[in-house]
């Protein structure tokens, strides 16, 4: 620790600024419900962003690939040790994050002489009923926010800037439609929201200080452009899955076909 508390605070502020800047252009992730469970979607370059952690727990992140990898492996280790020692049902998102991942992140962030994790995460847990589904957002500084999907709109987003996240949430609120929408409809909605987020983050980068105008963004156009060089990655946590493992990565070609005509 730096001896003068003020200098420590300054160091933390610098760190925060640096990390926020690194995260700014990360590809957003959209989480939506659909008729049979939850859907996660992103459009990224080659590296994967959406992963299975445990039978009912999914993980997505943006940030530094090596840090994403480390957090993912930490989550998998914690979940499997607990699931083995007790039972599958005892592995909950709350325990994984509150007792495992968040403390580690906070410590890494506050130790100003060692490197922080440059990563923001969105985790989801599928319950037995839709009322028991929950999501958890976890930041590089260890702060986390858990929400039960029943008590609010059934979606969550992850993007590089607060502004982009707000734009995506606004778009989803406006175009939500039937909460029991099919998987295809959810894929389309999620892809559109992703496009809004990506464009907003990029606009924000170009015109700092000015408000970016989401009315101008055409999600179809942004998505079409992105799909030229990126692939769309989507996964579901499916309540109707035959086995206890609920996570399923969707076939890229099928997803691409579903979202290409927004």
């Amino acid at each position, binding site marked *: 620790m730096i001896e003068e508390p003020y200098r420590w605070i300054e160091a933390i502020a610098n760190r925060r600024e640096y990390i926020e800047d690194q995260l700014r252009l990360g590809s957003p992730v959209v989480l939506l419900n659909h008729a049979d469970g939850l859907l996660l979607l992103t459009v990224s370059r080659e590296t994967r962003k959406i992963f*299975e952690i*445990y039978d009912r727990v999914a993980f997505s992140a943006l940030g530094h690939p090596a840090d994403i*990898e*480390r957090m993912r*492996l930490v989550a998998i280790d914690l979940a*499997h*040790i607990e699931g*083995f020692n007790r039972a599958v049902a005892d592995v909950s998102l709350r325990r994984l994050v509150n007792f495992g991942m968040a403390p580690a992140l906070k410590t890494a962030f506050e130790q100003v002489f060692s490197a922080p994790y440059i990563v923001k995460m969105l985790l989801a847990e599928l319950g037995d009923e839709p009322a028991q589904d929950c999501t958890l957002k976890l930041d590089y500084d260890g702060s986390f926010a858990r929400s039960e999907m029943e008590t609010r709109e059934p979606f969550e987003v992850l993007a590089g800037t607060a502004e982009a996240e707000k734009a995506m949430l606004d778009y989803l609120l406006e175009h939500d439609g039937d909460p029991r929408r099919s998987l295809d409809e959810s894929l389309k909605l999620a892809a559109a929201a992703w496009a809004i987020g990506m464009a907003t983050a990029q606009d924000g980068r170009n015109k700092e200080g000015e408000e970016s105008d989401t009315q101008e963004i055409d999600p179809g156009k942004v998505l079409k452009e992105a799909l030229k060089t990126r692939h769309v990655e989507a996964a579901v946590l499916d309540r109707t899955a035959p086995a206890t493992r609920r996570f399923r990565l969707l076939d890229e070609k099928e997803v691409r076909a579903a979202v290409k005509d927004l």
Partner: protein
Amino acid sequence: MDHLVSTPQFLHDGDFLSVLKAHGYEVAPRLAEAAAKFQHELGKGGIATEGTTVLAVKYKDGVAVAGDRRATAGNLVMYERAEKLINIDERSILAIAGVPAVAFEIARVLEHSFKYYQRSQLQEMSTAGKVRSLSKLLKENLPLTLQGVGMVVPIFATYEHADDKNEGGKVYFYDALGAQFEGVDYAASGSGSLAVRSVLHYLNTWGDKPLAKYNESEIVVTALRLLDTAADSDTATSGYNPKSNIFPLVRVITKQGIREVPESELGRVYRSDV
């Protein structure tokens, strides 16, 4: 000049057992002195439960796996509803003969290991890797095995997806020390296994057609008949008991995965063909 180049450590090699061990877990608790005493107690009439007779046979669509339901301790019937077939993943079954306590623990570690590997490494473990994992676990159990306590002789049955002639059902069996053997056509384990193997050899060599050409209903009938045969000469193996209506467990592993043959179907087969 030691260690001019140090071998880098994998950040993560997907080995669940080493993670467990780092947290103080032991597959076979050290029982050195206690085991000797336990062994003495066993000799006096047995307090260790043993499960018996499991078999796996390759047929046209994959592998059929069957196990009787009796668990005994010496001449005492411990349990008549023991489940000796454990689904390890979507297309692998572990059939256990030997001491259930250790066998269930091994099955649990194995099941978690496969899932852990696939989730952390983002690719499924190969069949050869899975077979080897079980072998490693059995070797971990050596202390108990050598003391004569807690011996496990399992069968590992799986369906291998491949683009060549390697595709299809696979059967592996193990000795008490963990050596793995591939059963070309079938495998059986447990106190009733000798009877089962003898019949299978006869059928495969001189029957109407080789076992590998049997269809699903033929193999189910055969499996039930085999367990009945074993039960005839081995008290530790139960056949079908009409009074209590307890059936053996029969499952088939095919390209589509694992299917349990339901009791209704087993009952029908018993009435008509066994």
